[in-house]
């Protein structure tokens, strides 16, 4: 178990490095420079600015310098968005905002999806099942910005019961969290329902029922254990994406979060910001995938991790 974890952590670090390098190469391959703007048209000035920030060095050397700096906690300064401000400072300002909304969305979407999925499977064929399946089918079919815009129009503009921008009070969290969480909720509902249906038809469930287990115990103790596995697989990467913020929801609700800022920094070619955000997302992603694999083992001890690394 320990060697497996160590091996996976080493692999994860390699993955993050590869992601970082690919992103670094990609953003440098995009024509244009962060310094071309209305202010500086002169190539001479641009060249001097690039020299100042070390952008005239060979790519590999730049990457090496950047990574060594990153490991020491030096993420460089923003080139464009907030000129010369420390990237670390910007991220510590924006990331908690996105993480708050993302965690809140995850916090309602996960339990709701699981519970409703179990309900649908339990009431298979009856009206709750039909209703929930229709909801889930619709929920995964509405594009994010459409949902966000419709929620905004309905609750913010027409009914005027919820604030439409910012995050000043807990009530301001409701709409963004709804918009961010509906798709994952419906997806989890579908996953749970499918897994539950399979498990409810298995022998050990019948055996548990014969031994006199009540409905609650049957569902939550015996069946949930098996049904939660596919949900966990989905929830790992999902959590990483939700925590780093969604561009659409953040722009529709004017939330000063990382998701919106990242897209803006890509469009502005603000290299250090792009790199730092990408590495943050990649770190979160591999960490959560690893965590899910370990959780797998805890939930279902039959799954042997070391073997899985090769076969599964």
């Amino acid at each position, binding site marked *: 178990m320990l060697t497996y974890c160590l091996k996976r952590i080493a692999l994860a670090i390699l993955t993050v490095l590869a992601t970082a390098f690919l992103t670094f190469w990609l953003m440098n391959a995009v024509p244009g420079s962060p310094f071309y703007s209305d202010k500086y048209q002169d190539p001479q000035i641009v060249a001097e600015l690039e020299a100042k920030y070390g952008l005239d060095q060979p790519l590999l050397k730049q990457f090496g310098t950047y990574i060594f700096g990153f490991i020491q906690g030096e993420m460089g300064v923003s080139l464009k968005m907030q000129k010369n401000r420390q990237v670390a400072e910007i991220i510590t300002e924006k990331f908690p905002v996105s993480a708050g909304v993302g965690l809140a969305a995850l916090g309602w979407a996960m339990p709701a999806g699981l519970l409703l999925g179990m309900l649908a499977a339990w009431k298979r064929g009856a009206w709750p099942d039909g209703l929930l399946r229709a909801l889930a089918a619709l929920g995964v079919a509405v594009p994010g910005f*459409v949902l966000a815009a419709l929620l905004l129009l309905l609750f913010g503009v027409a009914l005027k019961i919820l604030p439409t921008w910012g995050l000043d009070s807990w009530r301001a969290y409701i709409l963004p969290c709804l918009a961010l969480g509906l798709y994952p909720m419906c997806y989890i509902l579908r996953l749970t329902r499918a897994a539950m249906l399979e498990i409810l038809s298995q022998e050990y469930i019948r055996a548990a029922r014969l031994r006199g287990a009540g409905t609650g115990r049957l569902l939550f103790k015996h069946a949930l254990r098996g049904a939660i596995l596919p949900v966990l697989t989905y929830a790992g990467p999902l959590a990483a994406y939700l925590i780093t913020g969604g561009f659409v929801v953040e722009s529709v609700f004017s939330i000063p979060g990382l998701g919106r800022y990242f897209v803006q920094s890509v469009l502005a070619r603000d290299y250090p910001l792009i790199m730092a955000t990408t590495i943050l*997302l990649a770190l979160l992603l591999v960490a959560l995938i690893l965590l899910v694999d370990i959780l797998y083992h805890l939930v279902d001890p039959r799954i042997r991790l070391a073997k899985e690394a090769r076969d599964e």
Partner: protein
Amino acid sequence: MNKGRPWSFQVDTERFRYAGYREDDFLPAGPEQLAAVIQAAEPARAGRIAGRLLRSRQALSGLIILGLLLLFAVVGPMAIPYGYDQQIRGGNHLRPLEYTAAEEQLLAAGDPVCPHWLGCDGLGRDYLVRLMYGARISLLVGLSAALVALAVGAAMGALAGWLGGRADLILMRVAEVFSAVPDVLVVLLLQVSLEEPLRQLLGRGGSFVALGPGLISMFMAFALLYWVGMARVVRGQVLRLKGQDFVLAARALGGGSGRIIRRHLLPHCAGEIIAVTCLQIPGAIFLESFLSFLGLGVAAPLASLGSLAADGLGGVYSYPDRLVWPALLLTLMILAFNLLGDGLRDALDPRTEQEARP
């Protein structure tokens, strides 16, 4: 099979030696034997699956919605005499079923004028026609992007699953890297760097260039980013299948790796592959609408449902119908593909028949 040597494709000979055979005892099969085996193994599944699909209400409703959407997108523009980029004089922000002053005069003179069913947009272009073309583009993006992702993903997944061992490990790590690279960055890169070469390659004009470098680079970006999901599914299936006896039989009959993957393993995964493709099409449509929302989507006079919805969002307080229509069509389209994909998956899953309730 053959755990010790991950790079080797050979049948594990230990099993045979134990039974008193050696590898050399196996001769390649002759043409008649091959023909007999192939005939005996010919599956008659397609008809049964189609039948099951048509009986499933879910898949059928998906198919019907898709058919209607196709009709709307492909045949629709022929029924309306306006072009998607034709600006009608005095028609700016026309409300649904209103006429411009010039058209009123024509009507008064007794000439037939095609009504603007959904009004016109801010530049005086007939909105219904734009919606039709938008649906066309969105369908095109979804289908072609998912097909590209299918080709790349199925190949990579089959390779990873079949080779196993180190090759598998490396390919799957590569997949992980691709799922962490920001997609906006990839699209932006392809768009900016491909614009010139594409223009030269395709020459000026032509229907392909009309799509714009944005759309073409989006196909490529989708192929680069979304093969991962397909590869995972195919790899899992191949891992499950490759230990089964029919693979051993194919190998014993002298089939090479390439042939076994193409003729035996991939057809076995066909169901899963089709189902995943049906579920990836909405992903492509989502991505396109999101990129159009950012302004990275289709080139200007052309519209997709995503760019129409993004435009509609801008003027949503005065013209809410211009957000509602494209949003409704997008939702219907994605819903239809989801229904079809789910229905297909159920139809292909042999367990569903026994599971069906009386």
